[in-house]
């Protein structure tokens, strides 16, 4: 295994973008869970709890950047999430809870889980500890969306499929965009994709999709 020099300019340059992405990702997750209270008022307390966790994650990842004396490129991160955020905001405006949950509680959480799992073994010691703590929470966030969609599966199945078609291609584009920086941090695209697809497929299976449906959905939009 190659030894990673966390202080070298190339690493820190890549880190300024990846670190910004996770900080922005956690911020948007926080905002999204708060926004979801509009559509799920009876789950407001739980959503606020999830949002609070995301806020804590954001602070943790901000500390990771400071620890390496890296300034996160927040503008880059906002651009990175722009299309996905737009889809979430549109769905929220239309009262489309299913799409909101698919974007935030399935796709984003599955991606975060995959990325954090791949990152932990190659992270600097400070960031490793923070990320390990974050990861445990993200599994809870995933199960929030998973459980709601499972409980309402019969009514929302087609909407989940539509949200998947709309948003999964964005995930592949986002992944392409970070491939080089992630590699600098020791994270291979193939591993990120494999772990995302495995986690996402498993989640779709738990919600109620058949193997055949999952195979088609999880590969949707891949070139």
């Amino acid at each position: 295994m190659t030894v990673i020099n966390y202080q070298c300019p190339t690493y820190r340059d890549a880190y300024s973008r990846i670190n910004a992405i996770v900080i922005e990702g956690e911020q948007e997750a926080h905002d999204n869970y708060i926004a979801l209270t509009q559509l799920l008022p009876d789950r407001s307390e739980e959503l606020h709890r999830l949002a609070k966790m995301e806020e804590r994650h954001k602070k943790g990842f901000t500390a990771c950047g400071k620890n390496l004396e890296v300034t996160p490129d927040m503008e880059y991160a906002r651009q990175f999430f722009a299309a996905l955020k737009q889809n979430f905001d549109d769905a929220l405006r239309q009262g489309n809870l299913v799409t909101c949950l698919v974007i935030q509680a399935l796709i984003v959480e599955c991606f975060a889980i995959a990325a954090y799992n791949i990152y932990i073994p190659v992270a600097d010691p400070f960031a490793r500890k923070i990320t390990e703590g974050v990861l445990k929470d993200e599994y809870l966030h995933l199960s929030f969306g998973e459980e709601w969609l499972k409980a309402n599966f019969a009514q929302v199945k087609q909407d989940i499929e539509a949200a998947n078609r709309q948003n999964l291609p964005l995930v592949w584009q986002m992944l392409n965009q970070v491939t080089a920086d992630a590699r600098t941090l020791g994270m291979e695209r193939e591993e990120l994709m494999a772990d995302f697809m495995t986690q996402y497929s498993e989640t779709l299976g738990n919600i109620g999709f058949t193997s055949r449906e999952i195979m088609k959905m999880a590969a949707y939009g891949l070139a």
Partner: protein
Amino acid sequence: MFGLIGHLTSLAHAQEVARELGYEEYAQKDLDFWCVAPPQIVADITVKSITGKTIVGKYVESCFLPEMLLLKKFKAATRKVLNAMAHAQKHGINITALGGFSSIIFENFNLMEMLHFRNIKLEVERFTTGNTHTAYIICRQVEEGAQKYGIDLAKATVTVCGATGDIGSAVCRWLSVRSPIQELILVARNQERLQALRDSLGRGKIMTIEEALPQSDIVVWVASMAKGMEISPAILKKPSLLIDGGYPKNLATTIQVPDVQVINGGMVEHALDVDWQIMKWVNRYAPSRQLFACFAESMLLEFEGWYTNFSWGRNQITLEKMDQIGALSRKHGFRPIV
């Protein structure tokens, strides 16, 4: 519930099967895609024993392809096996056989050290390599094949290629104690292991494959090679019997010469039909009744409720365990294909 972790024999095979099963988007993808594709349960299986007992199981496609080994994509290969095992475990499967290359990858890449990954802790007692049953069946194929094709074992020279592997070493132990064979030839790549095996057996000649084949009445091929076995028919003794325990099994089609018989090694036939769709893709011989002995081992363990990693580790297969699994094999209606 039992499980089988399997995979297809090549990228071309995988693309063909994907197309036949209606996954056009998978059929068009290259190896990179198969490297990231997650495991899936693609079939439910029902098996009835001749004792009358019926069990159900699931087939887990790992999406591993042998090209991953040829192209040294070892991370992908190990990920495939671990993910497929995790998938089986999460679906509550009690005992799952690691078919094809899965058990070889598990052993060679030391996956015992990697059982804890993501939020998963693999419970090894839920898995079996199936190698004890495979070794037993191959030994029976040697004996029954010799009888069928008029080879007198007492005068026969038997070569085991891949002698130091888990299955190969078990076959050598059986043949040297239980069969009246005249000569045993041991072929493998690792000379140190070969010598250790010879010492433990107290018999057997160590040779290269080129030296061994021209003098062998029976050849047992259990070496693991990602492309299957390639040997020239010209150097084979005539008559002789080849037992092809490799995967994919390509000897029956590549070696078509008079006086050389080929048996699909490590394959069993069940007395009753097995209800499964997937097997016609995984093996193309006689889908409804024939299957890999390693798969059948998980069925045997399920029939008996033995939820334990019966076959595990390297070179742990004893004659007693072969007797045990052999008795179950006969009890539930499996027999070696000859």
